């Protein structure tokens, strides 16, 4: 399953919590796409970052780090979630997303 954030959700993702921070938030993306697809079956999910004007850290942390907080184990995410981009300038977000997932895991364990 492939999700392109810019095409399927918003070209300008922003904010953390839904609905108080707006309609393009990390929480909404997580609820309506990531969680939904992860719970639907055991397929791998590819999230493509191409096309957006940029990703604020608060959005990425809530969308991806939040997956650990709502109960998805780190190992499951590592096995089923793939983050991709064809834009060289967006490659840094891939590391950032995995760092947020790792940090959320470490916080949950602490």
């Amino acid at each position, binding site marked *: 399953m492939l999700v392109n954030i810019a095409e399927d959700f918003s070209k*300008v993702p*922003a*904010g*953390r*919590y839904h609905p*108080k*921070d*707006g309609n393009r938030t990390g929480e909404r993306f997580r609820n309506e796409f990531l969680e939904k697809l992860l719970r639907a079956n055991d397929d791998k999910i590819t999230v493509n970052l191409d096309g*957006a*004007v*940029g*990703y*604020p*850290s*608060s*959005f990425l*942390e809530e969308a991806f780090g939040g997956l650990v907080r709502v109960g998805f184990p780190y190992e499951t995410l590592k096995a089923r979630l793939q983050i991709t981009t064809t834009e*060289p*300038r*967006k*490659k*840094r977000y891939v*590391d*950032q997303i995995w*760092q947020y997932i790792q940090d959320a895991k470490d916080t949950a364990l602490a």
Partner: protein
Amino acid sequence: MLETLGEGLGIFLIAFLGGLAGAVAKHPFSFLGKRVDHKTTSRETLERLVVEVLEEVRTLSVGYWSVDECDNQKAAGARIVALCDILPELYIELFEGDLTITRDLDIKLNRLTNVITGGTFQQADRKKDHSVISEMERHLMSLMVEIRLQKARLPYPWL
């Protein structure tokens, strides 16, 4: 008479060949010189653009984190995100995609964006926070210094 003619022809030939050799040799050196100038200018332009973008990020961030979340600062928040997204394009071009350099810069940029656009960034209940400005300054300077150092270490632009 024939001997004089032979000598004249010899001198002519030597002069002609010397001139030809000079003309042939001059072309690639002049081409190389132009190429070096072009690359040097291009590097300087890219470095200047990187610095300009970082200065703009600094100004916007100071304004953004000096007040509580409000409509006036929403545009600044959006600009910060867009500028931080564009920045790697400039340093990837400057360092011609050298992965060792650009990976280090990505890590530093991620630290910077994590501070500026993380936490309560774009949250309705965000409060002004001067500690973000201090942290931003530290990471922004670290990134700027690294870019300038790496640029200074680039090999002479022969090729």
